C-alpha cells in the first residue's frame, strides 16, 4: 500500500478524463436505423404494467388496442374536442345532465372476432365500478350510479349528480364482455397480458423490456399504414438520451434539459407538447401567515413565474396564475393573471402587519414570517420548483423551508404545512380540471389534495356548480371565466407553471408521415403520447 500515494493523482486524472468523455455529447451516426419503413421504434421510460383498459391502461380516449366510446381530436395547443369513436354520435343528455344515452356504431368487431355491442360497454363500466375488482380507475366513475343497455346498440348511463363533464368518463377503453365474465381482482385478469380490443393495433409480443404492437389485420377501416410499433424500455434518462443519439430509435421522451441538448441537431427534432399539467403549492389554512387572504395575494404577486419556467423547466412550460391554461379557449379568462410586482407584494405584506425587521425578514407581533413547503421525494421537478420558490420568497422577507415528505408523511400535515402539488390528470373538460380544487365541498368530499387550502366562497361555488350542470356552452364558458376572475382576487394557492412535455423524434420519421401531431396532454405522459399518440391515423407522405 506504500505505492498508493504515487498512483492516486494518476487515477484521479484518468477518471476525470473518462467522466468528461462521458459528458461530452458525441455526434450521432446517421443512417443506422435498420428497421423497415413501416415500423416505429420508441424508447420509453417505463412499459405499462398492464395492457388492460379496465386497470387504467391508455384510458384517455387514445387507446391503440382498446378503443373507447369517444376520442380526442384537435390541434396541439387547444382543448381537444371529444368526438365519437365507438359511439355513433354525440350523447343525448337529459335536461338535468343526469341521464346520458349513447348510441353505438354497428358492424364493429373485436380482434378475436366477437361483435362489439352494448353488452361490452355495460360489462366494462360495471367491472370498473365493481369494488371486488379493485380497479385503480374506479375513482373516475364515482358519480356513475348505473349503466344499462336499452337495446343491442344503445347504452344509458345514470349519474348520482348532474355533471356535464361526464363525457370525459366516456374515454375509457372497452373490453369484450366475454372476457369479463369471471369476477375478481382486475390485477388477476387475463386482459392484463392478452388484451382484446377493437382498435387499429393488436398485441404482438410483451417481454420484460419490449412491448410490440402490430396492425390489426381485421381492423374495420383496413389495416393501418404503420404496421408495427415497438416500445423498448430504458428507465434511465441519460441512457435513453445516449441510445437515441446512437440512432437506433425513432423517438423517446426526455426531461426538458436533456431534450434541449438535441435542439441544434438536424437529425432530430424536439417536440414539445402543450399540457394542462400544472404545478403549484397549497397555502395551509391553519397557518397564521398563509391563511391570511392578503398574504396569499402578496405571495402570488411576489413570485416571478417566468423565471421559474426559464430556470427550472428549461423553458418547457408556461407561467400559470390559475389552473386554466389558454388552451381552454372561450373558458379561459385572459385578464386573470398575476403580474409580477414585488413592490405591491411588499405593500400588501406591510398592510397585513407582516413587516420587515433588521435582518430583512418579516414578522408580525414577534411571530416570524415562515412556513414549511413539502414535496414528494420522488419528483425532482417539484423539488427544484420548491427550492426556487423558496429562494424568491426570501427576497420578499419570507422564510420558506423546503422539506421532502412522502404521501404518508405529508397528508397529516396538510393543514399546517404547504405542499407542492401537481394536477391536470383529467384535463379534457374545464370542470374536471377545476371543480375539486376550488369547491368548498372539498377536501371533505374528496382526497387530501383536493382544495388543500380549504378555500370557501359561495360565489365561487355557485359559478362552479353552474359550469358543472348547465348544458348551454356559452353560460358554461362565462361561469368559468367568472371562476378565474374570482380566483385572482382571492387566490387559495400559488399556481406556478404548466409543465410541457418534451419528446425527441427522428427528423426523417416526421418527414415520412402525416399525423404526427400532439394533443393537449394530461399529467401522465410518455411515448404513448407525444407525436406518437395516434399511430393508427398515420399516413405515409408520398
Amino acid at each position, binding site marked *: 500500500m506504500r505505492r*498508493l500515494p*504515487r*498512483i492516486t493523482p494518476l*487515477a484521479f486524472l484518468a*477518471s476525470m478524463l*473518462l*467522466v468528461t*468523455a*462521458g*459528458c461530452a455529447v*458525441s455526434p*450521432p*451516426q446517421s443512417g443506422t*436505423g*435498420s*428497421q423497415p419503413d413501416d*415500423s*416505429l*421504434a420508441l*424508447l420509453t421510460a417505463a412499459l405499462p*404494467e398492464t395492457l*388492460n383498459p379496465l386497470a*387504467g391502461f391508455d384510458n384517455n380516449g387514445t387507446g391503440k388496442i382498446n378503443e373507447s366510446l369517444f376520442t380526442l381530436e384537435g390541434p396541439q395547443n387547444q382543448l381537444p374536442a371529444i368526438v365519437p369513436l365507438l359511439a355513433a354520435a354525440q350523447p343525448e343528455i337529459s335536461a338535468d345532465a343526469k341521464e346520458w344515452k349513447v348510441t353505438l356504431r354497428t358492424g364493429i368487431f373485436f380482434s378475436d372476432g366477437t361483435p362489439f355491442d352494448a353488452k361490452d360497454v355495460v360489462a366494462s363500466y360495471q367491472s370498473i365500478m365493481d*369494488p371486488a375488482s*379493485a380497479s*385503480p380507475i*374506479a*375513482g*373516475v366513475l364515482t358519480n356513475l350510479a348505473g349503466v344499462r343497455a336499452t337495446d343491442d346498440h344503445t347504452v344509458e348511463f345514470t349519474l348520482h349528480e348532474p355533471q356535464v363533464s361526464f363525457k370525459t368518463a366516456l374515454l375509457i377503453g372497452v373490453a369484450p364482455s366475454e372476457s369479463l365474465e369471471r369476477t375478481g*381482482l382486475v*390485477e*388477476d385478469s387475463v386482459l*392484463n397480458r392478452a388484451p382484446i380490443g377493437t382498435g387499429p393495433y393488436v398485441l404482438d409480443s410483451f*417481454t*420484460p*423490456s*419490449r412491448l410490440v404492437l402490430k396492425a390489426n389485420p381485421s381492423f374495420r377501416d383496413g389495416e393501418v399504414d404503420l404496421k408495427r410499433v415497438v416500445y*423498448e*424500455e*430504458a428507465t434511465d434518462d*441519460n*441512457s435513453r438520451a*445516449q*441510445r437515441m*443519439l*446512437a440512432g*437506433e*430509435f425513432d423517438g423517446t421522451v426526455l426531461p426538458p434539459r436533456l431534450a434541449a441538448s438535441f435542439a441544434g441537431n438536424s437529425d432530430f427534432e424536439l417536440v414539445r407538447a402543450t399540457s394542462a399539467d400544472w404545478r403549484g403549492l397549497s397555502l395551509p389554512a391553519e397557518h397564521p401567515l398563509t391563511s391570511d387572504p392578503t398574504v396569499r395575494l402578496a405571495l402570488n404577486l411576489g413570485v416571478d413565474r417566468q423565471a421559474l419556467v426559464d430556470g427550472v423547466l428549461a423553458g418547457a412550460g408556461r407561467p400559470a396564475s390559475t389552473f386554466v391554461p389558454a388552451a381552454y379557449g372561450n373558458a379561459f379568462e385572459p385578464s386573470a393573471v398575476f403580474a409580477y410586482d414585488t413592490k405591491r407584494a411588499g405593500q400588501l405584506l406591510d398592510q397585513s402587519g407582516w413587516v420587515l425587521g433588521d435582518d430583512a425578514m418579516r414578522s408580525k407581533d414577534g411571530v416570524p414570517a415562515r412556513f414549511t413547503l413539502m414535496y414528494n421525494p420522488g419528483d425532482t421537478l417539484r423539488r427544484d420548483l420548491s427550492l426556487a420558490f423558496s429562494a424568491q420568497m426570501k427576497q420578499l422577507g419570507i422564510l420558506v423551508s423546503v422539506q421532502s415528505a*412522502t*404521501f404518508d*408523511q405529508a397528508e397529516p400535515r396538510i393543514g399546517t404545512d404547504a405542499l407542492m*402539488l401537481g394536477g391536470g*390528470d383529467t384535463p379534457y373538460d374545464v370542470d374536471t380540471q377545476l371543480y375539486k380544487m376550488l369547491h368548498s365541498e372539498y377536501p371533505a*368530499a*374528496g*382526497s*387530501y*389534495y*383536493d382544495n388543500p387550502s380549504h378555500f370557501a366562497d359561495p360565489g365561487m361555488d355557485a359559478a362552479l356548480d353552474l359550469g358543472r350542470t348547465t348544458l348551454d356552452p356559452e353560460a358554461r364558458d362565462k361561469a368559468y371565466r367568472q371562476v378565474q376572475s374570482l380566483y385572482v382576487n382571492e387566490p387559495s394557492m400559488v399556481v406556478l407553471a404548466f409543465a410541457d412535455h418534451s419528446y425527441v423524434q427522428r427528423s426523417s420519421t416526421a418527414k415520412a408521415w402525416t399525423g404526427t401531431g400532439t394533443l393537449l396532454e394530461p*399529467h401522465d405522459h410518455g411515448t404513448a403520447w407525444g407525436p406518437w399518440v395516434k399511430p393508427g391515423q398515420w399516413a405515409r407522405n408520398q
Partner: protein
Amino acid sequence: MILAAGTTKHIRRGRGREIISLLSRRFMVAIPATMAVTAGVFWLASIAPFNPLAAYLGSAYEQATPAQREALAQELGLNDTWYSVWFRWIGDALSGDWGTSRLFAQPVATVLSERLGYTVLLTGAGLILAIALSILLALGAGLRPGGILDTLCLSVVHIAQAIPPFVLGLVAIAVFALSLGLPAGGIAAGGAEPTGASVALHLVLPACVLAITLLPWLVMNLRASVLQELASDAVLAARGRGFGRRQILLSQVLPVASLPFITVVGTRLGELVTGALLIEVVFSWPGLASATVDSAIAGDFPLLAAVTALTCLMVFAGSALADACYLAVDPRVHDV
C-alpha cells in the same frame, strides 16, 4: 505431491464423501436461513416508507378519497399484518405456487423465468471475464512487483473501484457505442426481434463493465496471494532448482494463490447480483436485478420474496461450492 496412484484414488474417494457431506450440511442450513431471510424481507418491507397502494394506483392515488383507499386496501389485502402475509406466501410457495406479481401483472414464476436467464447470462459472462482478467493482471503484476505492469494494473483497479458502475456504464456507452458502433443497450437493435447473435453482441458492453466493477476485489486479493506465495520457501526452493520465473508462477504460485481467490469469488456471488443491478438499469438489460428494486418500491411482496429467496440461496450455494472446490483442490484441508 508425489503420491502412489492407489493412495490418490483412496484420497479422492474420501474427498468425494467429504464434499457431499459438506454440501448436504450447508443445504440443511440454507433452507431455514432462507425462510428466515424472506420473513425479514416481509417485515422490512412492511415498515419501509413505501406505500404499496400509491404504487398500485399511480397518479390516481392523489385523487382517491380516504374511504376509497381504505376499501381498495381491504380488497387487495394490504391491511393484513406482515406475518400473516408471509405465512400465506410461504405456504403457497412450498406447495409450488409463487403467487402473482402485482408490478408485472403476471405470475411470479413467469416473471422469474423470463428474466432470470438474462441475469444469469450477464452475471456469468461478467464473472468469467473478471476471473480471466484478474488472473492475467495479478500474474502480470506478480511477475515484477513494483514494475510498470504492476503500477498500471494497480491504477486500473483503483480507478475501477473509484468510478460508480452507472458512470462507468454511461462512459462506456459514450465511448464504445456512440463512436465505435457497439450497441448501447437492450438486447436487440431498435425495433428488431432479439436473436442469439443480437443478444451476444448486446452482451459485450454490459458484461465488460460488470467485469471491470468486479475486478478490484479479485485482482487485489489474487495479487496479494501471489506476492505472499512468491516469498515462500517452496518458491525459493524451486528457484534454487533453477526454474524460470514464468514457470514458477504457473506451477508453484498460481495453484496455491488461487485457493483464497476461490473463496473471494464464492462470497462475491451474492454481490454480483447487486452489482448487476445498476448495469442492468443503465444498459436496459431485461434481467431480474432491476425488477428487484422496482418490486421493493412497489411493495410487490410475492416477487420481492421470490427474488430475495433466490439471491439468498445463491449466496449459500456460492460459498458452499467455493468451499467444496477448496476441498477438491487442496489436499491439506479437511474441515470447512
